[in-house]
């Protein structure tokens, strides 16, 4: 393609010099990439480097920091709240991701049937994903209210399964599970719709062949469905893990890290220390501590994508 387009560069002579400059391919490429790459370098790459630098300084709000080496990390190493936030983040990521994928896969399998109102169902199921996270988190906040929780109302007054109202957000473990539940609720639609896209590309002839060979439903799932959606599953999983691990909004909106710092994730703790607390250096150190995990997830995603291309027999462009 490159060779073909080179040939025509000689056409269009005698026009304005500016027009000719824009037909000069290297210049055109440069101008086309400039806005996107420029914005990304200034507001993404540079801050990323700046954040890593800040993590090694004692910067505060309104005062540039001086290099203090690993002091921030030494401080964090003995910080009980920091380690609790690491534990919370891992628990939150593992449990919420597992929940989202099990329920999302189930929903995708249900939606893959021949159903009435199929496109309508697909559309309304995406609603929790469309609505701004913070705004639906406010609904959960109200549903988790200690005195007027509708969940407690149903369990206690309607079904009679419990005697007392649940203190959702006042107790450390209750609060953690409540946050995980809210995160799963929000994540299911995206997982389900993405996996549905994968399910729809599986040829029914595979199932027909398996049925003729006497495969049970579980075998059909295990040996046809699952391997066929594995590539998409890997990509969606990586994104989901990445965004759950670095989640901020849901926790900030529902508990703000409380009760007594028990539900802080690394992102919310970084915010707490850096912005209201003013300790930019320490906050950056917490944020930077998330990076090794992100690199791991990215590499995983890259190899999942690469493997998928190889599976489909495409050449790497």
């Amino acid at each position, binding site marked *: 393609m490159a060779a073909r387009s080179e040939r*025509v560069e000689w056409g269009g002579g005698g026009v304005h010099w500016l027009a000719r400059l824009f037909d000069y391919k290297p210049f055109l490429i440069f101008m086309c990439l400039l806005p996107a790459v420029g914005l990304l370098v200034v507001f993404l790459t540079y801050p990323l480097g700046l954040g890593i630098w800040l993590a090694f300084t004692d910067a505060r709000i309104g005062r540039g920091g001086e290099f203090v080496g690993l002091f921030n990390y030494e401080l964090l190493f003995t910080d009980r709240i920091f380690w609790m936030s690491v534990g919370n983040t891992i628990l939150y990521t593992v449990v919420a991701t597992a929940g989202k994928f099990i329920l999302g896969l189930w929903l995708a399998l249900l939606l893959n049937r021949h159903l009435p109102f199929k496109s309508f169902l697909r559309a309304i199921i995406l609603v929790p994903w469309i609505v701004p996270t913070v705004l639906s988190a406010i609904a959960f906040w109200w549903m988790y209210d200690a005195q007027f929780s509708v969940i407690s109302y149903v369990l206690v007054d309607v079904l009679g399964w419990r005697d007392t109202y649940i203190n959702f957000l006042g107790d450390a473990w209750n609060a953690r599970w409540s946050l995980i539940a809210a995160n799963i609720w929000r994540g299911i639609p995206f997982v389900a719709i993405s996996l549905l896209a994968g399910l729809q590309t599986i040829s029914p002839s595979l199932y027909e062949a398996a049925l003729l060979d006497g495969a049970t439903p579980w075998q059909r799932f295990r040996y046809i469905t699952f391997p066929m959606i594995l590539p998409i599953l890997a990509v969606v999983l990586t994104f989901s893990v990445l965004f759950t691990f670095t989640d901020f909004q849901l926790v900030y909106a529902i508990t703000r890290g409380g009760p007594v710092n028990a539900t802080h994730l690394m992102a919310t703790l970084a915010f707490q220390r850096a912005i209201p607390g003013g300790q930019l250096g320490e906050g950056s150190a917490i944020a930077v501590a998330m990076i090794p995990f992100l690199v791991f997830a990215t590499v995983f995603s890259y190899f999942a994508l690469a493997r998928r291309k190889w599976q489909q027999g495409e050449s790497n462009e």
Partner: protein
Amino acid sequence: MSEAKSPPVTTVAERTDVIAWESIPRQVVTIYVPLFCFVVILLFPFYWMTVTMLKSNEELLNYTDYNPLIVYSPTLANIYKLLFETDYPRWLTTTMTVSVVSTFISLFASVLAAYAIQRLRFKGSQWVGLAIYLAYLVPPSILFIPLATMVFKLGLFDSPMALILTYPTFLIPFCTWLLIGYFKSIPYELEECALIDGASRLQILWKITLPLAVPGLISAGIFAFTLSWNEFIYALTFIQSSEKKTVPVAVLTQLVEGDIYHWGSLMAGALLGSVPVAIVYSFFVEYYVSSLTGAIKE
């Protein structure tokens, strides 16, 4: 394009019922009951928000005399209070301005970048593509602290400009990624014909490729708009004064003052704040779902 992609997909899906030999009662238990539960659980919070929004104060906190799941005497007092006694309309306009402007900036930058990567094919174009894809994997929660110091130094603190300039960092990678996929589906021969007829590269982009990529532009635009409408952590960090906040931040920080939570107004604020994205989404739901699935297949 989406039309070209979807027909084989649906025919494949329709045929799966050929092997659905299960009896009707069994189907009800294995499919319709779980599906019904999913829909109820996924939509219940919205029902609960609506109900809370329409309740009067005495009804809201009295579960013994009133069934909380039903509104006995609906009132618009909460919405009235929100619209006329708070800065809510200003928050809406701020959010709208920021979202629209950053969406257009991102679309402009993404179209050019995607065109360069996909159509102008140069040495290392796939590396630029990969780098932009990787940029999508850098989450705002590790960037907001250094960005806050930058915003402060540039004198943009507490100004919507700070949001307009930083939102494209997570919009451009996504839009570029989506548009590369779209440009791929447009036949290259069309551009060659135009080149032979003496059109310049920019004319080709403007008059041939872009009109054909309109569905892609629409879905990229919807995604960018919803993502910037939903953005939270930058808006929370960079904006301080009440009247300049965006809706998600303002509902959470401005409507909860003191110990008494005005749940009715809070729910009204949350629901009304979701309306613009819901409208955009409902108009373009087909584009949305197909491009979502298309982007993942890409």
